[in-house]
């Protein structure tokens, strides 16, 4: 299934980026037509589209994503694998924190449904979702960087001090989303007949929740975590800009506006592969939890 999906992703984005007006060298200083022609020839842009597509596919099959049009000294692979470890580290931390805290808060709110606790958690959650990161990031910098002086405002040297604020800024909206999702499905799970049976067996609150309600209640959250993880480890443009982090998030946007054809394709394929892998992992986890899926 994933091979045709990947092919479709490559084909659609290849032709779409070329349909977009402008080209990779338009932003340069006005070059003479001869120079332009040479440039186009060097990058095979003068060939018919199907031929270019074939050439590109052939390259992809050999894991060669070509040179970047913009950062001419680097290949696309080099650019991605230079930035990705940084985005991955921050993203995984953020995901670990937000799923732990989010699931805990969501379950807690579901158990205390319609109480003051529930409303408090959900209000904070809604706020977390509603305020975009380009607002929260500068606020954190202002408070923790400037006012309190605990942490560096921005920059990257690989030390933990530089990671705290970006991870925080990435985590908050995810905590909010995960806790709301978990709350909803946990409320449903707590009302299900088999949880009623567990209560009728006198198992007590803790066993009833952990053994009987949580498994079913976390399935929707699990489904959400797959694509969300793929999204978060490929970096956030906003966060990486705000904190001056050399991740790969910025390439997604810069490549598109530069018409950096190969880099656009590279990032799209990279993201696509991550999504497919993440969903595969989620499917495997699903089959671990749900015996009905396992036997199908």
């Amino acid at each position: 299934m994933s091979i045709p999906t990947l092919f479709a992703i490559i084909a659609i984005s290849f032709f779409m980026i070329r349909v977009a007006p402008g080209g990779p060298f338009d932003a340069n200083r006005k070059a003479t037509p001869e120079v332009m022609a040479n440039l186009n020839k060097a990058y095979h842009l003068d060939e018919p589209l199907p031929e270019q597509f074939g050439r590109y596919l052939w390259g992809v099959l050999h894991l060669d994503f070509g040179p970047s049009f913009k950062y001419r000294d680097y290949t696309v692979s080099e650019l991605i694998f230079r930035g990705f470890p940084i985005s991955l580290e921050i993203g995984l931390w953020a995901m670990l924190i937000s799923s732990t805290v989010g699931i805990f808060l969501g379950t807690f709110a579901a158990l205390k449904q319609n109480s003051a606790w529930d409303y408090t958690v959900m209000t904070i959650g809604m706020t977390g979702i509603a305020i975009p990161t380009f607002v929260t990031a500068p606020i954190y910098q202002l408070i923790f960087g400037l006012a309190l002086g605990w942490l560096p405002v921005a920059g990257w040297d690989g030390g933990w001090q530089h990671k705290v604020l970006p991870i925080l800024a990435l985590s908050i909206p995810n905590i909010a989303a995960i806790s709301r999702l978990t709350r909803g499905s946990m409320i449903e799970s707590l009302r299900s007949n088999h949880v009623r049976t567990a209560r009728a067996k006198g198992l007590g609150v803790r066993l009833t929740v952990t053994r009987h309600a949580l498994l079913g209640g976390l399935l929707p959250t699990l489904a959400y975590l797959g694509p969300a993880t793929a999204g978060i480890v490929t970096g956030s443009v906003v966060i990486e800009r705000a904190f001056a982090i050399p991740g790969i998030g910025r390439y997604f946007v810069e490549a598109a506006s530069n018409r950096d054809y190969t880099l656009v394709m590279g990032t799209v394929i990279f993201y696509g592969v991550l999504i497919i892998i993440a969903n595969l992992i989620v499917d495997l986890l699903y089959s671990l939890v749900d015996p009905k899926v396992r036997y199908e």
Partner: protein
Amino acid sequence: MASTKLAERPAAGVRPSGTILEIKDLTVEFRTDSGKVAAVNGVSFDLKAGEIVGIVGESGSGKSQILMSLMGLLAKNGSASGSVKLRGQEILGMKDDELDKLRGASMSMIFQDPMTSLNPFLRVSTQLTEVLVKHRGMGKGEAMKRSIEMLDAVSIPDAAKRIRLYPHEFSGGMRQRVMISMALLCQPSILFADEPTTALDVTVQAQILDLMKDLAADLGTSVVLVTHDLGVVASLCDRVIVLYGGRIMESGPAETLFADPKHPYTRGLLASTPRLDEQTHGELHTIPGQPPAVATAALGCPFEPRCEFREARCKTVRPIIQDNGERTVACHVVSL
């Protein structure tokens, strides 16, 4: 049936008979947007050791809510008042952790829908053994052995192997057998059964009911069976309680009550039951009107609006409960 093997305690005959459960003036109310609504209103009855009592009534008569309140399983907006004593111990208003020592151990419950009442994510073995681990402090191995015995007792073939399966690998009838074995693991004093056969094939219903009856007798467990199926009650129960609008209309030994129904509602119910052994002419009898929405429980008899024999006082004065020691009836018009 391997009764000696199943029962750790002396069986029914040896055990002192007497009243196991005393329910006095049980009222179950729900807070709703339009105020408090009573689903069960001043219900009183006793349950004796080894007895099978059937509670019959239409949908909305409050019959299931009686069981839910006894098990402490009412919805969050529900509350119960009155008095319920299990072997002399008041259980109404008990804290959850206190109640958890009784639920599954001294009293247990099986539900209407066996398809969803078992946890789909856990093996049957886990769901059975956890009861024994919790209430009897058994180790895993001992609990497993006893659970397999119990599955054997409910006639699940190849129990030692089947216990490793997941609920979806069992049919509806088999799942209800698993539920019954689960409920009886700790040899409870009382088994509450909320329409245990409603969701099952007709052919399976009789088997399940027989099984319940035999096992309850073997273990000396009393049963409260809630149903709308009069046939089930007639074949299984020692005593019947007829519920309408959250109140007891009539109660008594199954045989005499069915042979000689007193209350107009009971008569209507029996007349509305299709019978295979009689020639029927034309349409099946129905009781005119609709069962009451719980909120309308007013001063008089709840059945008054639909009663053929109603008198003026039926609307304004609540009938006193006539009790001759064997049967009760709550009606102005008829007398015991």
